[in-house]
Structure formats: structure tokens, C-alpha cells
């Protein structure tokens, strides 16, 4: 093996900062030992530790060192870089140094959270060594400033989409609101009263709808879908296709709308608002925009055929179906569902949520819904209370694994349902209730059998007239959108934000934001809060009139370039690279920084700023070098 001891360019001084991340890092990595090891890496001038480097005191350490002239480049050893790269670049800039003179070592997700033995510290030291080696090869870069369009596109016309569109318009941003169905209102239009305020969903939507349609800044496109996407923050080019509705769900909604006979622009319960008639012909619309807010919502889980008797028995319905039944006419003093009088009912929770691998059956795509849908607990309690208040003679059995009435005012629903006489029966996830038809001659059509966990697993047989399945929330049909935008999804298949606490509505691609239940199960309050946050984030970027892009584009060394043209042949971006006076040149506005040109240049004359081949070679040298000794 050759002597690969990494050597930094002369006189360069690297400051290394080690984050404990509370105990997330320091519980597995011996940070004091790591500090000592880092001090011995050639070129390191300063090493400091902090409980949370992302905190103000942590960032101040960087600023103070740079202002004192202790270092001219920075390595932060902390969590995954996408979480805090922006934070630390900001601190480096406030310390007076070019923000790109910074490198990150991921010693949490890729060390302390995956290596739990004594080798964790040595592995962390290697990553620090590699990061220092890269830092030694950094160069100052300037962001690319581009004009930003003062226009945003909101995809999805439910409550979150309308709220985001309105908030953007109020901040002076023109908005195109793109809704796939012929109706605005989304899933909220298919609810009645909203917990915990008991507002009518229709009233809330009507208020928003009136403001959205009155705003001269908002253009609404229904029956419309984004089918192509290109560009970058400040300069996205979208292709929107409007077409006649064809899905079964849309056609059913249109039929209900027509049956209601209401004029355009009025609310039709469990349908929504139709601002215009559904499209009848196909058209393609180009939308030049600066930011995209995704508010594409969720789907209600639909139980499989036979799941708790669903589909096999007309007396088994979902919670969403019960809510609609309750909102309809209920003459007399008895609850009626699907034309049947209900004296005794069962409600089964966590249907389509909190699946357990090995216990629950995967769907046709191999997916389980391991997430908690969060809102169905309180929604179930709300429905039970309403039934008890309107039809007090109804006997309600509530079969639950857990009850998660988590939000402000939600617990009152549980207390109220208990006071009202709802009978709660707890079951184990491995001992789900079984729904079967009752024996002939029984007074009730169905019997629910379950082992009651709180009665030492005593088996109960509960005859009922109705079984309500508290169905959860599952991701909407985002596959096309994900393919277009390349934004990640989480293990739960909902769209994934950069950081749940620190950047909760942003995705990795700048200028694309998340609003509402496309991101996770949320109630209306939370969806509106997320929509407001997304609108503010988008407006903050677009209101400046310009955006700054990372300068990670190809750079030619004219001294080395011999004008072979290999890079031009390889570059997939038309017009990005050209030969001028026998030398290759790059148009930074068109370069995506893929680096394909780097690999084919016979002279090694091309680098991608911030991701150079020399930096990678230095990191490999550091990885194969002998470990730093304490």
C-alpha cells in the first residue's frame, strides 16, 4: 500500500466542531476522545465540542473562531448534512468567511445511530479525517443569483390548498391553484362538523372559497393536473393538463352535484364547490411560476373485502360513511343508517392504521400502514357523542387498542363519551375483534367477538345492528407527482419534509413546499397551520425578486483545457457547454452539476464546484490512511 497520509495544502487551517446532539451522538461516540483525535489531524487548528452545535451558542463558537482568525475553513461533525448545512453555512458567513468553506461529517445517522460498539469512535474519527481532507481542498464560491417570478402554483384545492393560495395572494404573489377534480373543498367537503370547535366544515370552506374566487391574484384551474415540471426555485415551468373527468370518484361526485341542482359556486354537501362546469375537452396550459406548494391531500383508507366483514355485510360501514349518514336526514328518535334502525352499534378503531409486520396483511403493493392516522380517535369520539346526544337510547360499544385524543380540547370528547355511557372495550393488536353474522333468530344481524384485555382476555360476544370501522388516512395518489418532482416519500409513503421540526414544510428541492395532509395525517387545524407556513416560506423567497442558487456547476480550467469537445458531446443539457476560442465554456444557468463532463475530460480540466474529483481523492486517501492515534 502506498503512503496515502493525507496532506492539506500548505497553511490551511481547519476548525472542527463536534456536536453531542444531546446524547444522540455522545451516547455512542466518545466525544472527548474524538476531540483529541481530531486535534492530531494535520491541518486542524481548532477543535471544539458543544451539546447542540445547531443552537445559538454552538453557532457562536464558529463565528467567534472565524472572527478571531483561528481558522479559514470549517468542518462540523453532527447529524445528516441536509438538516443543518444551511444553518452552518449561515454561521460561517456571519463569521466573515465564504459560506462554501465548510464541510460536514455525518456522525449521527451514519455513526452513532448505526454503530453501537467500541468501534463507533474510530469510525467517527475516520469520517472527520475525510471531511478535513475535503475541507483542505475547498475553494470560495459565490452563489448564482437569478431573478424570481412573483408567482406560485398551489397543487390541490382542499382546505390546505385554498388557505395557502389565499395567504400567498395576500402577500402580493400571483397564484395558480390547480385542482385535479372538478370541485374545490377536498376531503373536508366530505365532513360535517369539525372538532374541537364544532364549526360546520361547509361554513369554513364557504368563507375560504368566497375569498379565493374573489381574489384577482388567484387563477383556479379545476379538472387540471401538473404533467410536466422543470426548472428551479424562482423559475419553475409547469405543464398543466385540463381534461374531462374520467375517474369513478369524479364521475360520482359530478352525478351528486347534478342531482343537487345547485348553481355553480354554491356548496354541495359531501361534494364541494364547482367554480365552473367540468372540463369537456383537453387543453394544455403552460404555467411559469416561482414556487410550488403541494397540497394534494390524502385518501381515506378503504377496508379490504371481508376486513371486519366490510363489503360482505351491509351493516358494516366506515366512519366516513357514518358521518355522512348522521349529516343526512334522521327523522324520528332513532338513528338510521342505510335505511336500518340502529339500536346497538360497535365501533372498531385503528382500521387501516398502525399495521404490524407479520400480523397484518400487506396490500397488493406489499405496503402496510404502520403509521397512526391520529385524527380518527377524536373523530370517532365526536361521532359517538353526537349519536348519544341525538339518539340517547343507542347502545355504543367502542373496541379500541389505544385512544389517542391528543389535541387541545380532544380529551373532552373522551370524557364526554364516557359520561354519555359509551362502553369501551380494549383489545390486543394480535387479538382483533371478529365480525360475523349472528345466528338465525338473533335480534341483531351481526356479532362482534373479542378477548377483552382489561377482563383478563375474557371472550365477549356483542350482538349489534351496525359495525363502524374507524378508517384511517393513507397517502393520496402522489406517484406521478413524486416521479415528476423527485421529492422523497417517507416509509409511510407520505411526502417527506427536510426536517420535521426545523424545516417542517420544505422538501429537498428549494421552492417546493408541503401543505397539509399530503405530508402526514393531520386534522384541519394542523393542515391550515402547515398551509400558512408553506405560504409564508414561498412568499419569503419570491418577494425578494431574486433567488440565490448553490454554485455547484461545472468549471473549466482554461489552462488545462485543450478543446477536445468530449465534454460537449457528453453533456445532456443542450446549449450548456460550448467551445469558445478553442476552449470549453459552461453556461452556469443551464448546468445541473451532474459532472458527466468531468469523467470524460482527458485533461482533467473540469470540476464541479464544491464536489471536485480532487476532493474525493483526498477523502479516499484519508479513509485508507492509518488511523489517527490518540
Amino acid at each position, binding site marked *: 500500500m502506498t503512503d496515502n497520509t493525507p496532506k492539506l495544502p500548505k497553511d490551511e487551517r481547519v476548525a472542527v466542531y463536534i456536536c453531542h446532539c444531546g446524547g444522540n451522538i455522545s451516547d455512542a461516540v466518545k466525544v472527548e476522545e474524538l476531540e483529541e483525535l481530531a486535534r492530531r489531524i494535520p491541518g486542524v487548528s481548532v477543535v471544539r465540542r458543544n451539546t447542540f452545535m445547531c443552537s445559538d451558542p454552538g453557532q457562536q463558537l464558529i463565528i467567534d473562531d472565524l472572527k478571531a482568525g483561528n481558522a479559514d475553513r470549517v468542518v462540523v461533525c453532527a447529524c445528516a448534512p441536509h438538516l443543518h448545512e444551511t444553518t452552518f453555512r449561515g454561521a460561517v458567513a456571519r463569521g466573515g468567511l465564504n459560506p462554501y468553506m465548510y464541510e460536514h461529517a455525518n456522525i449521527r445517522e451514519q455513526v452513532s445511530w448505526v454503530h453501537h460498539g467500541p468501534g463507533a469512535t474510530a469510525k467517527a474519527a475516520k469520517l472527520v479525517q475525510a471531511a478535513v481532507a475535503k475541507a483542505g481542498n475547498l475553494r470560495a464560491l459565490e452563489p448564482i443569483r437569478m431573478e424570481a417570478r412573483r408567482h406560485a402554483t398551489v397543487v390541490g384545492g382542499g382546505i390546505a390548498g385554498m388557505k395557502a393560495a389565499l395567504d400567498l395572494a395576500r402577500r402580493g404573489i400571483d397564484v395558480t391553484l390547480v385542482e385535479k377534480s372538478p370541485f374545490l373543498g377536498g376531503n373536508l367537503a366530505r365532513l360535517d362538523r369539525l372538532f374541537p370547535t364544532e364549526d360546520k366544515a361547509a361554513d369554513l370552506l364557504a368563507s375560504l372559497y368566497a375569498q379565493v374566487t374573489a381574489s384577482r391574484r388567484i387563477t383556479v384551474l379545476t379538472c387540471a393536473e401538473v404533467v410536466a415540471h422543470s426548472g428551479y426555485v424562482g423559475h419553475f415551468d409547469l405543464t398543466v393538463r385540463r381534461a374531462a373527468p374520467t375517474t369513478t370518484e369524479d364521475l360520482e361526485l359530478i352525478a351528486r352535484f347534478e342531482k343537487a341542482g345547485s348553481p355553480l359556486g354554491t356548496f354541495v354537501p359531501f361534494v364541494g364547490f364547482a367554480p365552473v362546469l367540468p372540463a369537456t375537452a383537453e387543453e394544455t396550459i403552460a404555467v411559469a411560476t416561482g414556487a410550488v406548494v403541494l397540497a394534494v391531500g390524502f385518501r381515506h383508507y378503504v377496508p379490504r373485502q371481508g376486513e371486519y366483514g366490510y363489503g360482505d355485510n351491509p351493516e358494516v360501514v366506515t366512519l366516513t360513511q357514518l358521518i355522512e349518514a348522521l349529516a343526512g336526514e334522521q327523522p324520528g328518535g332513532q338513528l338510521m343508517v342505510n335505511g336500518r334502525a340502529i339500536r346497538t352499534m360497535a365501533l372498531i378503531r385503528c382500521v387501516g392504521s398502525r399495521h404490524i409486520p407479520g400480523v397484518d396483511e400487506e396490500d397488493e403493493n406489499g405496503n402496510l400502514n404502520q403509521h397512526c392516522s391520529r385524527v380518527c380517535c377524536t373523530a370517532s369520539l365526536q361521532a359517538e357523542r353526537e349519536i348519544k346526544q341525538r339518539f340517547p337510547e343507542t347502545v355504543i360499544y367502542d373496541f379500541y387498542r389505544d385512544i389517542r385524543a391528543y389535541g387541545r380540547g380532544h380529551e373532552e370528547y373522551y370524557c364526554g363519551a364516557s359520561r354519555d355511557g359509551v362502553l369501551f372495550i380494549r383489545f390486543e393488536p394480535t387479538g382483533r375483534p371478529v365480525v360475523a353474522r349472528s345466528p338465525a333468530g338473533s335480534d341483531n344481524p351481526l356479532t362482534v367477538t373479542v378477548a377483552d384485555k382489561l377482563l383478563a382476555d375474557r371472550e365477549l360476544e356483542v350482538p349489534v345492528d351496525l359495525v363502524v370501522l374507524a378508517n384511517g388516512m393513507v397517502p393520496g395518489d402522489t406517484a406521478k407527482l413524486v416521479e415528476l418532482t423527485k421529492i422523497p416519500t417517507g416509509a409511510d409513503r407520505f411526502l417527506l419534509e427536510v426536517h420535521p421540526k426545523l424545516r417542517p414544510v420544505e422538501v429537498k428541492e428549494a421552492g417546493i413546499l408541503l401543505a397539509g395532509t399530503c405530508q402526514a395525517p393531520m386534522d384541519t387545524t394542523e393542515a391550515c397551520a402547515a398551509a400558512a407556513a408553506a405560504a409564508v416560506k414561498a412568499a419569503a423567497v419570491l418577494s425578494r425578486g431574486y433567488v440565490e442558487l448553490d454554485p455547484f456547476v461545472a468549471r473549466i480550467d482554461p489552462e488545462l483545457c485543450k478543446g477536445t469537445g468530449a465534454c460537449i458531446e457528453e453533456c445532456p443539457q443542450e446549449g450548456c457547454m460550448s467551445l469558445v476560442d478553442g476552449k470549453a465554456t459552461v453556461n452556469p444557468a443551464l448546468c445541473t452539476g451532474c459532472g458527466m463532463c468531468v*469523467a470524460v475530460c482527458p485533461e482533467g480540466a473540469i470540476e464541479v464546484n464544491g*464536489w471536485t474529483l480532487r476532493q474525493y481523492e483526498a477523502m*479516499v486517501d484519508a479513509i485508507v490512511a492509518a488511523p489517527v492515534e490518540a
Partner: protein
Amino acid sequence: MTAADAPKILILATEDCAYPGANSVGQAHLTYPENTFLLRVREPAMFPEKFYLDCFDKGIAGIIVMSCGVECPYEGAYNALAARINRVYQTMKARGLDIRRLRLTAICTVCNRAFLKEVQQMVDLMNELGAPGSEVKATSPAA
């Protein structure tokens, strides 16, 4: 064998797909061997053939290129990468290096099981093959 002595495996992980995929392994608090070193890359199509061969010369025992596969956000990059890896294989064969030391795969942002499988397979293989070049010695007439 301590982690320091174990054959070193380099993982080139794309920042859009495989690197977040590796992070998801950490977020799930799963585990994999310590002799694996992940470098975040924008797109591995930037590495010329020489880079891989130099890595083996320097003592890297195995390389896993974790790309975005067909999900690659850079047009044409995945095909260029696959073609390049094929050319590296030809040179590796000519040098007597076991081509299994270099593996091209695709890992998505939530592919934590696939990530673990790829890593473990390479770790097992490297434990079997040993340091790069050892297979050349083993097959040479003088050995």
C-alpha cells in the same frame, strides 16, 4: 479482526436517493459493519474509470456505487454510469481483480433494507476475498 483491520468498503451514495436511504437506516437505528465509508456524491457518473482503479490501488477492498437508478434526476447519467462501470470491469479483469469488488446498485430514499443487504453482501464478500490484489497473487503461478 478489528474494525480497523477489516477490508475497507467505499460507498458512493447519491445525495438525492442513496444517501438519504443510508440515513434512513440510522433513523431506524439499524446497524451495519463499521468498515464501510459512505461518501455523498451528486452523481457518480462524474467519476472516471481511473478513480475506481486508483481506489483499489490505494487499498479500498470493495466499492458499492449506490445510484438513483432509473430515478436519476440527471438525464442520461445513469446509462453513462452503467457503461463506465462496465469499462472498469474490463480493466479489473485484465488486472486480475475480482469484478465483484465493484458493484453498481440503486438505492432509494427509504430503501433501508436494500441498503443493509447490499452492504452485508459486500462485507461478506470482502471477508472472503481479502485485500484487493490478493486474488491476483492467489492465481499467479509463483504463488
